[in-house]
């Protein structure tokens, strides 16, 4: 186990900057998720930690050692790849023991470690099979087994669940999380799926365009996003945004006047983005009118697309309400959960 520190880490391909100087501290045993849209540089950053990409500038430190110029094999890391990268011509047992074999482990030691990992991951009956004889979930487990068998300082996961179906993804998500709780190995996990990030991480790093937008615990990011990008990226369905102006009467958006918390009036007359999560609308006869456009009953909740003034927003209601498209309801935004962002730049105002 080890701490990982990135100091002003940069990556360029020729004149094109991909990573613009990232600082990140990961404590021993922490589960950190790098999340962001496609092309934000999260996989590149992970590969730089792994040693599979060169580092243009800055410093990567693993366990108190600067590893910038070390080969992947000398960094004491293990990586799980998106497509698992299992060696097709080797059995599960050989795949798992391969790294130990090349690090001079004795046969008995390798067999013992492989058995230990296989028992943890429920792979014992599959050890003699080849990757082509395994299901997606089993392959995923073998890839994890290959990583844990060596007891590395850091686990690196590069979108490991993206090739699985939705149901299996949820199962494997739980398995990875419980594996981390058991082994307590420092883990860096890359995903574009914010649900994975929220459910698995001790700490989330939101990346966008090669820059860190925000670092924090999942609920901190959810409750107090630092800017409009994070607010929109974290949470599903995503946060609703209405652009307008703060007036003494409230928030004036096209076609509607929305209530504001007292503290917000300090930003009077400023062009602002009003953010509210779908679950922070309450059905209330004293609320603002909203015309229903679409109703999607999910069982545990009902997702409603509605028109607030001229803006389409999504609301999620736990109550079993009978709503139909075209009808007008009254909804009340919960004042304690309103997020205000600067219309220029998107920085949080409240």
């Amino acid at each position, binding site marked *: 186990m080890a701490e990982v520190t990135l100091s002003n880490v940069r990556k360029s391909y020729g004149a094109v900057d991909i990573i613009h100087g990232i600082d990140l501290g990961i404590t021993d045993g922490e589960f950190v998720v790098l999340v962001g849209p496609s092309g934000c540089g999260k996989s590149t950053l992970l590969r730089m930690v*792994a*040693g*599979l990409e060169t580092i243009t500038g800055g410093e990567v430190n693993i366990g108190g050692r600067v590893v910038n110029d070390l*080969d*992947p*094999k000398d960094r004491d*890391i*293990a*990586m799980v*790849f*998106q*497509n698992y*990268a*299992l*060696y*097709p*011509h080797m059995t599960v047992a050989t795949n798992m023991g*391969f*790294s130990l074999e*090349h*690090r001079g482990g004795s046969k008995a030691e390798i067999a013992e470690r492989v058995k230990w990992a296989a028992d943890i991951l429920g792979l014992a009956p599959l050890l003699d099979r080849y990757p082509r004889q395994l299901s997606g979930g089993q392959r995923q487990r073998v890839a994890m087994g*290959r990583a844990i068998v060596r007891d590395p300082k850091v686990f690196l996961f590069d979108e490991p669940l993206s090739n699985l179906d939705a149901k299996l993804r949820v199962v494997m998500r739980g398995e990875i999380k419980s594996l981390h709780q058991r082994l307590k190995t420092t883990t860096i996990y890359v995903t574009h799926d914010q649900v994975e990030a929220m459910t698995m991480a001790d700490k989330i790093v939101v990346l966008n365009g090669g820059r860190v937008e925000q670092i924090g615990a999942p609920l901190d990011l959810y409750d107090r996003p630092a800017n409009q990008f994070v607010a929109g990226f974290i949470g599903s369905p995503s946060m609703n945004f209405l652009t307008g102006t703060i007036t003494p009467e409230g928030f004036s958006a096209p076609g509607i006047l929305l209530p504001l918390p007292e503290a917000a009036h300090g930003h009077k007359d400023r062009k602002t983005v009003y953010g509210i999560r779908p679950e922070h609308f309450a059905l209330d006869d004293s609320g603002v009118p909203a015309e229903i456009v679409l109703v999607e009953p999910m069982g545990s909740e009902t997702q409603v697309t509605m028109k607030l003034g001229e803006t389409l927003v999504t609301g999620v209601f736990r109550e079993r309400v009978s709503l139909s498209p075209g009808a007008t309801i009254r909804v009340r935004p919960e004042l304690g959960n309103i997020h205000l962002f600067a219309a220029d730049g998107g920085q949080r105002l409240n």
Partner: protein
Amino acid sequence: MKAELSPRRQVFLYGLLCILLIPFVFPTWWMVTSSVKPISDIFAFPPQLLPESYDWTTYSKVFELQPFVKQYWNSAYIAALVTIGTMVVSSMAGYAFARIKFPFANAIFMVVLLGLLIPSEVTIVPLFQMFLKAGMVNTHWPLILVPIFGAPSVFATFVMRQFFIALPVELEEAARVDGLGRFKIFRKIALPLARPALASVAIFTFLHSWNLYLEPIVFLSSADKFTLPQALTQYTDAYGGPMWNIQLAAATLTALPVLIVFIIAQKQFVEGLAHTGLKG
């Protein structure tokens, strides 16, 4: 889902395939049957599809008139060495061109490919002079070295490169994380996975070497050093006319191992071609 063909279409298709087969099968049929015909029957009119009388002595004469066993051995060991040498050179070169970043890699690869465009008739004279200076004329060295570093190897390098390009790069990255260096990645990961491509390279190369004709007649002059295609031309009578039936018996014996190898390795051959995206 495969579309089921109606019986009429099936009959038509099989009939068409049988007709298309004739130009390929007939020469082989003619060679095998004529090898046991008396010489007068070979050119009889109307032609005999099946021999009316069998003369098996042609096969014993093959061995009496030439050191055929020695020549068989010559062809076999030269083809084996060329095949192994080409597999080693082409797999390493193909891997380098596919995976290792070095300056002007693509331009160098293009230059290498140009080797395929130059007919061997063009290079044979300078090659002869070169081997003459090296004292290698009337030895088997030119027949071994020229294909390993010449056009057949260029083609094999192309095949291997195409295969390695298609190999997922994550496998190599996983191996790097697992602690392997470049050469071990090649030997332990890339090469074992390249078996279908290597098999097709082996078949191509073996066939090319086995059938090589121009180089042996240029470089070899003593009968005990001849390879089989060259030996076939030596079955002549006192006036220099070909002894057709004996020659065809020798040709049948020459074609036999190739036919067996092809039948055994047919699957790999086709798989290998599929990997390269080439047609035969």
